[in-house]
């Protein structure tokens, strides 16, 4: 790791100020994406602003038809939250399937969605659950948030303070893991909302990052069962390909995982 200065923020405002004062700062939350990259000297920042002690980024609350989760909540806290388990069991399931136990003790919701990492699970839930991303300065609909691979609508120093998820009528999550890294090669979150609309979001597979599979959404709006997906596939040209799986294979996985997510509705455990 290159030399750096560590700064701990006690409030969101202080964090933003510390960030802006530095020439090339980064926010540090769970650190499980940032620190490995910095350790291998693939990234360098002069200042790391630690967000993990900011009290206002903690907490989980159910407000009407939405669940609001602080950006600083760890995956283990979300997975273990009885509120989340009751309101959106598949969201608890997704959180409980991220990385490994030690990662889940450190990694946070905000960190997971803040850089549209194709290997992150949460972006699929954010899109499928019509989430609103709350930052220190505004609210952004998830549909507008994930703009491209490793790119979001966030401004440079903007902080994800929380995410508000719509409580669906039912939802399910299934993913297929990369045998080496264990990140999803295709993770599909399927949700039917109370207004009858269906959202299907795919992470890990698309070459532009997380995306909504609209053909599947339309098909499922008419018939919310795996039968509706028969013969449906995503375009391999829009999928990522690497040594672990070609675009064609990932396209297959998306279809398979969508079916499995539908077979896993309402479960507090993800199919992996």
């Amino acid at each position, binding site marked *: 790791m290159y*030399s750096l200065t*560590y700064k701990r923020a006690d409030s969101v405002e202080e964090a933003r100020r510390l960030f802006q004062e530095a020439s090339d700062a980064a926010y*540090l939350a769970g650190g499980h994406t940032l620190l490995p990259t910095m*350790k*291998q000297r693939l990234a360098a920042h002069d200042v790391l602003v*630690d967000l993990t002690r900011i009290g206002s980024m903690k907490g989980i609350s159910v407000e009407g038809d939405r669940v609001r989760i602080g950006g600083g909540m760890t995956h283990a806290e979300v997975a273990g939250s009885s509120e989340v388990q009751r309101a959106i069991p598949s969201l608890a399931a997704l959180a409980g399937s991220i990385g*490994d136990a030690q990662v889940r003790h450190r990694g946070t919701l905000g960190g997971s969605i803040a850089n549209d990492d194709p290997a992150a699970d949460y972006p699929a839930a954010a899109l499928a659950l019509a989430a609103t991303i709350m930052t220190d300065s505004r609210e952004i609909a998830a549909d507008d948030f994930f703009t491209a691979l490793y790119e979001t609508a966030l401004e440079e120093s903007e902080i994800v303070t929380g995410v508000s998820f719509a409580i669906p009528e039912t939802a399910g999550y299934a993913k297929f893991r990369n045998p080496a890294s264990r990140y999803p090669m295709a993770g599909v979150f399927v949700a039917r909302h109370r207004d009858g609309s269906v959202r299907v979001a795919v992470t890990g597979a698309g070459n532009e990052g997380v995306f909504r599979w609209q053909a599947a959404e339309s098909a499922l709006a008419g018939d919310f069962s795996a039968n509706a997906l028969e013969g449906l596939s995503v375009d391999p040209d829009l999928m990522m390909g690497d040594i672990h799986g070609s675009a064609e294979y990932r396209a297959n996985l998306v279809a398979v995982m969508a079916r499995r997510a539908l077979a896993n509705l309402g479960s507090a455990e993800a199919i992996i």
Partner: protein
Amino acid sequence: MVTVTMTVNGRQVSKEVEDRRLLVDFLREDLELTGTHVGCDTSQCGACVVHLDGKAIKSCTILAAQADGTSITTIEGLADGAELHPLQAAFKEHHGLQCGYCTPGMIMSGVDIIRRHEGQLDEDTVRHELEGNICRCTGYHNIVKAILAAAQEMHGEVRQAAE
């Protein structure tokens, strides 16, 4: 440089370290607690697992400065004096280790697994829970056996105490 103060294995320590110092290097180099190991640089192998405020974490993926004010338990602090922790004893009894390099991380993770599941474990659960720990020697067979045995023993003891 930053000054970090934390409780390590029940003892308060305070040191000035480089801002970039990882917790694992702080433990190994500054406190000479070399039982915590480093086996990879991508946060996957789990040789560096310690407990931070009672939860298993990878000490290679957190700055020492971030751990300021916390309580850390390493493999050196697990036994109660000369009395081995039941999971340490189970690793020996069931031959859950060979070269010993992954062992501290495995044991610290195992203790965390047993704690979170309150001793209610089956083989499949243990295998999934060991996602973040890599062993190259044992094929995991006897590690799984040791964790299950210790869980049963510890849970049994808890039950007895309650009765």
